[in-house]
């Protein structure tokens, strides 16, 4: 792999983990798996940056796609046939976060994650990309593979809904 690509991946590593974490609904072990599988795709040459978009938006697209693959695989494993097959091959693994890790999560962070999980997926995605990853709406549209108009709509609706959820959550706690 080229030195330049390796440097870019290293600088984006923590952000990429944050994005993988969002794509996996806050599941740390799954997010680590997804990120590692995305790195493996690069190492095996199954994903390559064409230069049409920025490296960050392209890399985030790869992670999102890998997370969707992982989600499908997880659903298959949860199916009856999948359970039988994986029990037979002895390849079952627990994807739930460890209790100690859950305790480690800051309450405030957890509150935001809970509120985001109540939003439609697209709205949560665009808010994460804009506020967490500091992407522009245009870049978010490239990652999400939807039009800029749709992204703007999801962004506005998502913000309104998230504020309402956070306010009601704060009222409930007080």
């Amino acid at each position, binding site marked *: 792999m080229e030195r330049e690509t390796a440097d870019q991946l290293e600088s984006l590593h923590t952000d990429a983990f*944050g994005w993988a974490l969002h794509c996996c609904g806050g599941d740390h072990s799954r997010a680590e798996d997804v990120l590692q599988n995305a790195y*493996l795709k690069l*190492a095996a040459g199954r994903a390559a940056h064409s230069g049409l978009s920025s490296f960050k938006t392209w890399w985030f697209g790869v992670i999102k796609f890998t997370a969707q693959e992982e989600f499908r695989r997880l659903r298959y494993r949860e199916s009856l046939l999948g359970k039988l*097959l994986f029990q037979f*091959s002895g*390849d079952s693994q627990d994807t739930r976060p460890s209790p100690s890790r859950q305790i480690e999560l800051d309450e405030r962070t957890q509150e935001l994650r809970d509120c985001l999980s109540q939003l439609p997926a697209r709205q949560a995605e665009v*808010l994460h990309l804009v*506020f967490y990853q500091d992407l522009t709406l245009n870049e978010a549209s490239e990652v999400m593979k939807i039009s800029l108009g749709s992204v703007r709509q999801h962004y506005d609706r998502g913000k309104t809904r998230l504020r309402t959820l*956070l306010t009601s959550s704060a009222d409930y706690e007080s």
Partner: protein
Amino acid sequence: MNPENDNELKQRFTAQRRADTEQAPAWNPRLIEAPIKEQSFHFSKVWVMAVTTAACLMVSLVLFHQTSTPDLVTALPSLFETPTEPLFASLDDLAAVPSDFLLPSHLTLNLP
């Protein structure tokens, strides 16, 4: 767009980002140089299982087919066996017996 509210949201996300960064796995250059041996092994395991299942299925199908196909010589009814005696030979005996042997003797016709 309300910048004040956006700032509040931004602060929330920044706090989440900070927390995630603390828990993120450390960067390891080997991540992008790691061979995909484990994955290919898993992939080959799946293939071996699929091929074994297919082979078992084929063998069982062949065996089932062999046992269920009847032998024509033994399975055909004796209807198709070639008769060894002339056709309607048994009717000759019946023809020899007179058909009016139960009639009284004075009613019996004697042909010259």
